[in-house]
């Protein structure tokens, strides 16, 4: 977490420094907006799709020949600790044996781009900019150390695969469409079992394999009304919630015995 924050800080500092040194190279500006900044989970919520719109603003200092842009949009949901377990056959049955703990990883993670990431940037840049599911930092606790591992690590790939099966992790390298050479849009599909919280969207603009500029925006997914009320109370007032459920059970049992009374 802190390592990541300081990395971002260094990256920002470098970029600012670079911007002051050679302003011509950082001439573009990204203007983006998401179709809904507050997604509400209601009783009949069954997933929805947000739309991210944006445009690349050029100014006088933009190199005249630069027209081809690449975009990589990374949407990451609220962070949480997760455990991945592996089953093995023991005594003739399949039981959980080994496990890895993932620390403060996004519960939702989506990477969208306008063309395959290999075409957008070199592997080195992809790794540095954390482009794509294979390059996003997923910190594991390995014994006493905290580290991410190689993308083809069994636990890491199983983790990404399982999240993908639920629509919670996704990578779509043709999801960003340029409507005009500077105007773009992409859909952000949110599955039904989407985690509640703040979602950050990071938009990175590339040209000729190098990062030109980047910007961030965010949206919130909130439970409202009844769902929120129930979830909050279950967590914070467990005792009262329990009493209420008990009361509900007794009432429905009693009602049934009256409604269906035969004598």
């Amino acid at each position, binding site marked *: 977490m802190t390592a990541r924050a300081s990395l971002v800080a260094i990256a920002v500092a470098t970029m600012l420094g670079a911007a002051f040194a050679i302003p011509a190279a950082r001439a573009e500006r990204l203007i983006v907006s998401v179709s809904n900044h507050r997604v509400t989970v209601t009783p009949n919520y069954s997933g929805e799709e947000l739309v991210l719109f944006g445009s690349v603003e050029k100014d006088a200092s933009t190199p005249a020949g630069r027209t081809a842009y690449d975009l990589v949009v990374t949407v990451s949901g609220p962070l949480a600790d997760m455990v991945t377990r592996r089953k093995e056959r023991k005594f003739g049955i399949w039981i959980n044996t080994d496990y890895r703990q993932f620390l403060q990883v996004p519960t939702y993670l989506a990477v969208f781009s306008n063309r395959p990431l290999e075409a957008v940037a070199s592997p080195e840049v992809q790794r540095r900019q954390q482009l794509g599911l294979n390059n996003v930092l997923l910190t594991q606790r390995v014994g006493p150390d905290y580290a991410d591992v190689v993308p083809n690590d069994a636990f890491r790939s199983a983790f990404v695969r399982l999240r993908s099966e639920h629509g919670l992790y996704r990578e779509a390298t043709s999801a960003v469409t340029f409507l005009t050479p500077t105007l773009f849009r992409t859909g952000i599909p949110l599955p039904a079992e989407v985690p509640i919280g703040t979602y950050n969207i990071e938009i990175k603009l590339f040209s000729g394999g190098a990062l030109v500029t980047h910007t961030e925006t965010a949206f919130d997914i909130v439970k409202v009304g009844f769902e929120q009320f129930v979830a909050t109370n279950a967590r914070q007032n467990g005792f009262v919630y*329990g009493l209420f459920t008990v009361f509900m059970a007794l009432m429905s049992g009693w009602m049934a015995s009256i409604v269906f009374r035969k004598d």
Partner: protein
Amino acid sequence: MQIFLPIADIPVNIFLILAMGAAVGFVSGMFGIGGGFLMTPLLIFIGITPAVAVASVASHIAASSFSGAISYWRRRAIDPLLAAVLLTGGIIGTALGVWTFTELRALGQLDLMIALSYVALLTTVGGLMFWEGLRAMLRVRRGVAVSPRRSGSHGWIHGLPLKVRFKRSKIYLSVIPVVAVGVLIGFVGAVMGIGGGFILIPIMIYLLRVPTSTVIGTSMVLTLVTMLFATMLHAVTNHLVDAVLALILMVGGVTGAQFGARAGQKIRGEHLRLLLGLLILAVGIRFAVELAIRPDDLFTIREGDAG
């Protein structure tokens, strides 16, 4: 119609849950059991995590056993003293069970434990019940008179101290085995998300020799109180009780139970036991097969600490 469950955190079809509640309610009304052993696996099957399923089914069983207990109370088919002694054990067992549940959940072995206990318990009880029902049926066919309660035959249970006279059941019995049975039922109920009626009733009839007139009513009182207690404990310690899910199950369950009870009266006792035995055995075998064959996916993810 989809509805979002606030604790299970998934959308489900409300009519599917209602239908499941009604179907299990029908079976429970027919055999005079809570039906938790069918409900919990069904909920797990539609994608609700075992932990939430177990915790929510507890309140559903409480509702159906309360409606049952009221009608048995009107018919004076409940032995209050016997129920009280069973409850003493039941409360202790439930507390132990919820504690075990929390510990196993932290260890990541909760799902395995739930599956293993289902296999062990259901195949044993189902097998015995099926066998017993089959024998009873054959005896009836051969025209041999059957006396389920062999009066005068005293087992080791009747040699235990601390004997008490249970007036309404007309038995004179030590409280030790009664409390022990209560602990057992409370424990398995809290860990497995079942009321335990399908184990309790045979134990009461064959081991404690409680007359059939008070067996079902009294066992329902035990189920009711242990399940209420389990609901409270699960709500306070694990925050896993989904009240919305529980309410839908209750509405379906209590309705189905009424029709089940009517259907049950039309079937002969030994046929009923044979059917129930088969049903329990089938659920148990299904769990066993699931453990023995290689799972589709060897990996699972859960939020939280490894513990």
